């Protein structure tokens, strides 16, 4: 009993739970463990997975970003419009990436330099940016002129769709950034104790701006992938994304109080969210119930986190 508790509340507890859940689902839910379904599952978590990479940094440094959903929609829209206008997909993508970074940098600048609460700041930019997406598109979906744009999401490499590769690559890059670079350790230090980090020579202001700018950039990547998959720029795309992403991170053991985060945890968190949804779809459970289940999963995750930190004390 005690050793079971130890495993579940230990560092790898979540991975164990995930493996067990995966095994049970594979055995009991028909059509779950098929190549088609697994690829579909992975495809469905691409947006959450990509954005979770940088949300992890935000949360680890004791910040918060609610504007990610809007930014994904806005940058997707920009990518489509700019590609259409310039006639060049590459140029369109660059403009989208830049505008995403800009949104993030503005968030970071306001939060770090004026010391305004991240929750409030990003709540404001969430609405501003969603508004901008509606304004540039006049509230309508914008179609893509050059069919080459579809290839971003449709193309495959070794039989696996490009977006999944992109997500996997970002997992590796951000895992490395968190664990093996000064940037990652400084992020965690700021989350652990911002004042001590400042006195230890960490440039807290510029770190914050960088973290948010990076978040904006990665949202743009997700926005482009999403626009390509749904073959248009949708001003109302990705609503509520911020909550799914934050849930996935918290599920993955990222502490909302800052200072604690792990890439493997976040990946598992993203997968759990994806699997729950996928299984409910396979079992034909009504969408209304899915909200309830998602909320329950989040609650359980937070309770687990609580147990874990009180066990280690």
């Amino acid at each position, binding site marked *: 009993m005690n050793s079971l508790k130890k495993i579940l509340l230990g560092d790898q507890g979540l991975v164990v739970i995930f493996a067990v859940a995966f095994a049970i689902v594979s055995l009991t839910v028909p059509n779950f463990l098929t190549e088609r379904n697994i690829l579909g599952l992975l495809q469905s978590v691409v947006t959450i997975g990509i954005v979770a990479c940088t949300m992890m940094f935000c949360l680890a440094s004791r910040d918060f970003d609610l504007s990610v959903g809007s930014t994904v929609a806005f940058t997707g829209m920009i990518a489509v419009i700019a590609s259409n206008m310039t006639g060049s997909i590459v140029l369109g993508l660059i403009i989208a990436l830049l505008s995403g970074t800009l949104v993030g940098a503005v968030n970071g600048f306001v939060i770090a330099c004026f010391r305004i609460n991240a929750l409030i700041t990003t709540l404001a930019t969430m609405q501003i940016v969603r508004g901008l997406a509606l304004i540039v598109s006049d509230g309508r979906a914008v179609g893509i002129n050059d069919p080459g744009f579809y290839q971003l999401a449709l193309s495959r490499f070794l039989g696996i769709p490009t977006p999944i590769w992109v997500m996997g690559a970002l997992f590796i890059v951000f895992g490395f950034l968190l664990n*093996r*670079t000064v940037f990652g350790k400084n992020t965690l*230090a700021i*989350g652990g*104790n911002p004042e*001590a980090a*400042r006195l*230890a020579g960490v440039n807290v202001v510029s770190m914050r701006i960088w973290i948010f700018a990076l978040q904006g950039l990665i949202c743009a990547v997700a926005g482009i992938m999403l626009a390509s998959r749904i073959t248009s720029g949708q001003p109302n795309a990705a609503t509520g994304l911020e909550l799914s992403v934050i849930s996935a991170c918290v599920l993955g053991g990222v502490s909302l109080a800052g*200072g604690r985060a792990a890439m493997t945890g976040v990946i598992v968190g993203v997968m759990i969210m994806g699997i729950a949804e996928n299984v409910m779809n396979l079992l034909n459970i009504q969408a209304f119930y899915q909200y309830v289940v998602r909320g329950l999963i989040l609650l359980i995750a937070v309770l687990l986190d609580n147990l874990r930190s009180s066990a*280690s004390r």
Partner: protein
Amino acid sequence: MSYLSVQNISKSYPGVQALSDISFSVEKGAVHGLMGENGAGKSTLIRVLSGDQSADSGTISIDGIEQNYGSVRDAFDAGVIVIHQELQLVPELTVAENLWLGRFPGRGGVLDGRQLVETVRSRLQEIGVDVDPNAKVTSLSIGARQMVEIAKAVMMEARVIALDEPTSSLSSRESEILFKLIARLKAKGTVILYVSHRLEEIFHLCDSLTVLRDGRLAAHHPDIANVTRDQIIAEMVGREIGNIWGWRERSFGPVRLEVSGICGEKLPGPAEFSVRQGEILGFFGLIGAGRSELMRLVYGADTRRGGTVSIDGIEVPADNPRGAINAGLVLCPEDRKHDGIIQGRSIEENIAISSRRHMSPFGILQPGKEAALADRFIARLKVRTPSRKQDIVNLSGGNQQKVILGRWLSEQGVKVLIVDEPTRGIDVGAKSEIYDILYELAEGGMAIVVVSSELPEVMGISDRIFVMCEGRMTGEFARETFEERNILTLALPDRNAAHTV
């Protein structure tokens, strides 16, 4: 007939046996000392006593009745109150509100504000604590906060009061007030458990003593009159320590740090001083004298109103610690909980946070190098921990302090090292090791500033002493002229007024 009796208490944390089979007893109205090296288990024992942590086995009895408490609240009700090493007040509430916390007076949830404040005011006066009951705790010095905590225990009419290193953040005058208070409580029959690393205090206050070592009972002395200082040290450390200061003659180079005309929000008077290469400059003053504020301004941790700081003739940027670090100036801050430890991160990361930029090409970490650095300082400063991966919050107070010191002692390219209360909460053995490191660094040409409220320490290790009082520099002494009385005189506010008029 013993009043408080502790029997066969054991307690373990993952990877650490913090207490094994501890038994001792204390008479009614006695002050009982608890000593031991950092990590020996003193705070753990007190936490068990206060119901904050439950023991794995063993029993506690008060007045012959076996206690069976599961929470701090239960211990409260049994009359046991603990004043912890890390203070436990609610910073955003006022002094009066803190003192009443948990049992506010008034009927049906409506507070009687006047009664709240007036009772506290008269109680504080009664015990000689000079704090405004309406002041927010955030606005108080650490010393004043400590006094408030003690006042709280007195107000609760505790039968057993445990004090965990109470004087580590008190000025000598505040300590005197505390000692008087303890004498009064003792006369009332209260049992006092007193943890301290200061032998003088233990001899001054305690009737009996327990020494812990690595979680075990090293010695129990029912009557302190039968023990000597050296005996206690030997029981704690397991070896003899001769002269803990170990000061040695050094030669000085040209002026390294030059500070002139510094002033800031909390330090009105402009301050000036300079330190030479290889010199250790001590800053003495009572708590609240403005020493830490001055050092924070020098370091750029707070915003300066004016003045300059230069190292080897080159000016140091005024407004951020990072600039100072790059210029070779580092500060190990006073308040380790707020400004020092990075909670939730390992010992290794806490040590390497600043120096890792020198060993991380292109910002990519070299885990091997960081591990080696951490292990070196863990060994040298004798940090008691199962591994360098241990979360720093799981260390004992003194061991946390060692880690934060390690952070700055391991930094490379340092020309000026400022340490603010470096040995607060550190045991005798590790203290002398730290002084030794300071001497080594000074011999290498570093200019060192040591801020301390312990006069013996300042006199023991400094080459020169500056005295501060109420935000102004009031005196300077060269080593040949160190004289306890003269230094103290200049540190006391009232006498000073007479001097300057």
